[in-house]
């Protein structure tokens, strides 16, 4: 039996007196798209960051294909994992092309044609390689952020509120585009979001966190069918309620 792509084993993390994650255990098989949902301060971002060790757990282990991440050299570990986050963090002093291929150069590889390939993949014109980050819109910048994370060919993608700062239209199209990429490239993805609708529409599996604990872990259909408990259902109630009100408005019109 092959070990899961990512295994959280009793992971605990506290910042001073406040506990962010209290003993989370979870197996994520290769190829899965997992949404990590919860309100602010539920510990979802911290749990995500224990995978690439931007947060070091106080106790417990994170295993990638059976190997403890704590035993891996940081640069090696992080080059195997794509990381995309809300504030994007493109390097403002170099052009888009350099932003994308910098991970390859760090790994000592030649970026032959890879930048064009990645721009095609994320749906930006190839000419964008010569633009500076300041010349991009928010959606374009996050597309470049995704391309940069994919450059070194990682099998795991960590996304921390990746589309949180984008307008709803861009957010929807970028979400769908990434989901298609995930399937095409056979990635394993964990996406942190506080937006249950986004999670329901994109993910294979939804994990709900509340005050550092995992309180629900199930498929979108099951969640919509009413399973998962009060916290999870309270989160589902928001988009469901909005959808019903919209339908009522349509009926009145």
């Amino acid at each position: 039996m092959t070990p899961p792509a990512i295994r959280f084993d009793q992971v605990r993390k506290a910042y001073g007196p406040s506990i962010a994650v209290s003993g989370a255990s979870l197996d994520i098989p290769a190829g899965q798209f997992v949404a990590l949902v919860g309100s602010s301060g539920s510990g979802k971002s911290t749990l995500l960051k224990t995978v690439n060790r931007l947060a070091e757990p106080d106790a417990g282990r994170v295993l990638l294909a059976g190997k403890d991440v704590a035993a891996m050299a940081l640069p090696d570990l992080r080059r195997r994992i794509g990381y995309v986050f809300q504030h994007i963090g493109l390097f403002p002093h170099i052009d888009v092309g350099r932003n994308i291929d910098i991970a390859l150069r760090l790994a000592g590889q030649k970026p032959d044609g890879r930048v064009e390939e990645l721009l095609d993949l994320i749906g930006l014109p190839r000419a964008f390689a010569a633009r500076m980050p300041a010349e991009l819109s928010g959606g374009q910048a996050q597309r470049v952020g995704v391309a940069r994370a994919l450059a070194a060919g990682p099998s795991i993608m960590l996304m921390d509120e990746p589309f949180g700062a984008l307008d709803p239209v861009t957010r929807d199209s970028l979400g769908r585009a990434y989901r298609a990429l995930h399937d095409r490239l056979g990635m394993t993805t964990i996406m942190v979001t506080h937006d249950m609708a986004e999670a329901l529409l994109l993910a294979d599996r939804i994990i709900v966190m509340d005050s550092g604990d995992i309180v629900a872990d199930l498929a979108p259909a099951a969640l919509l069918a009413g399973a998962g408990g009060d916290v999870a259902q309270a989160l589902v109630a928001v988009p469901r309620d909005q959808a019903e009100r919209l339908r009522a408005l349509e009926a009145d019109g």
Partner: protein
Amino acid sequence: MSGALARLPGLLAAHVQLSVAALLLALAIGLPLAVMAARRPALARIVLGFASLVQTIPALALLALFYPLLLALSAMVGGGIPALGFLPALLALTLYALLPILRNAVTGLSGIDPAVLEAADGMGMTAGQRLRLVEAPLALPVAMAGIRTAAVWTIGAATLATTVGQPCLGDLIFAGLQTQDWPLVLTGCAAAALLAMLADGLLGSTEWGLRTRRLWPVWGSLAVLACGLGLSLVPLMRSQGPVVTIGAKNFSEQFILARVIGQRLEKAGYRVQYREGLGSAVIFKALSAGDIDIYLDYAGTLWTNEMRRTDVPPRAQMLTEIGGWMKGEGRAQLLGPLGFENSYAFTMRASEQRRLGIRTLEDLAARSPFLRLGTDIEFLERPEWAMTRSAYPMRFAEARPFQPTMMYNALASGRVDVITAFSSDGRIASDGLATLTDTKGAIPAYDALLLVGNARMKDPRLISAITPLIGKIAVNIMREANYRVDRPDAKESPEEAALWLNAQIK
């Protein structure tokens, strides 16, 4: 002026070397310190606090403080650390340049968007890669502004290195100020200002090139900087043979006599360098520490300042005691008196002196309640003033200090009636002044004494080159030489006056 222009290339070269060395040292210390401080706020507070504290010390005082510091350090490790010249100037200027470099580099580094740093960490950059690829280029514009400030400050403050005996463009400025040779002052200032503007421009274009990723301005500027530094080192390459360092205090007579000595040594085949503008408190210690080889001082100054004596023995006895004191303590050697005296001389306008019938200090004391006294800056605080007043009960209607030149002007214009002139000053004769006699011998003798460092006493060729000066410079010759430099019109440079003076000595 032509003599000054001949010195300009050498002084410019020394100025460039000193400034570049101080700036490079400050960068070598400041940039790593800034990287460390940017990650540790507590360290940043300590480091920036210290650098700011250094800035509050006037540059002149900072330079002066390094002299006793290095002297003590040298004594602690058994000698060998030069306390005068390049080293103290380098250290003081480096400290001075640290603040703008540190402050701007820390500001530049801590102003980087945290998201950019998170992205760098998230993609697996090592600390070194993050610094090189992300932090350094992003902090560069702000850090570079600090480096440019530091460069301009350093080049400006380096003119003060004259005061610790390091040759630089300040030599022209200080000598020009003392001899009221304004073209000389302007030459020094303009050269320093042009140098600062050039350095600022080159660093600016380097920054512009780095920021806009154009390589030619970067290499171009660096090439010009390297050429400048290379050119400044050319005089060093030529330096062959032993170099004798001649010290001088900060007034015309000292400038002239230093060159009288220098011209003789050059004729004897020595290479000579001058350390000018040294204060009375520093210059004797510099001689005994071996930082300078030769200078001349005045008997009364050594007697009161160095030997801390307040009695006034007859002249011959005083000279014997000074010579014995020097030899006894192994500090330096007294080669002999030059033949003239430069003492404090109570002086009046000759017409006034005849009208009032004042010939001696006794006469002056009797009339003092109706007279106004003008002195140089330090006289009223010196032991000589106390010694004079205890011998002659003087109580002037008014006593006020002046800059030396202003003091002569105040007497000429009638603002004061009596001044404490310098007895070898050329203006005593030219301004029609009369000096009063110290009948009780209250003021010690101020014979000009040629002093030589212990190491140079073992060099018979050097000693025989300067021995002919002993007893050969009469006060009227010295006054004439001083006047050639100090007179308001047709001023001569100290070099020219020294040539004239040397020609008078047979």
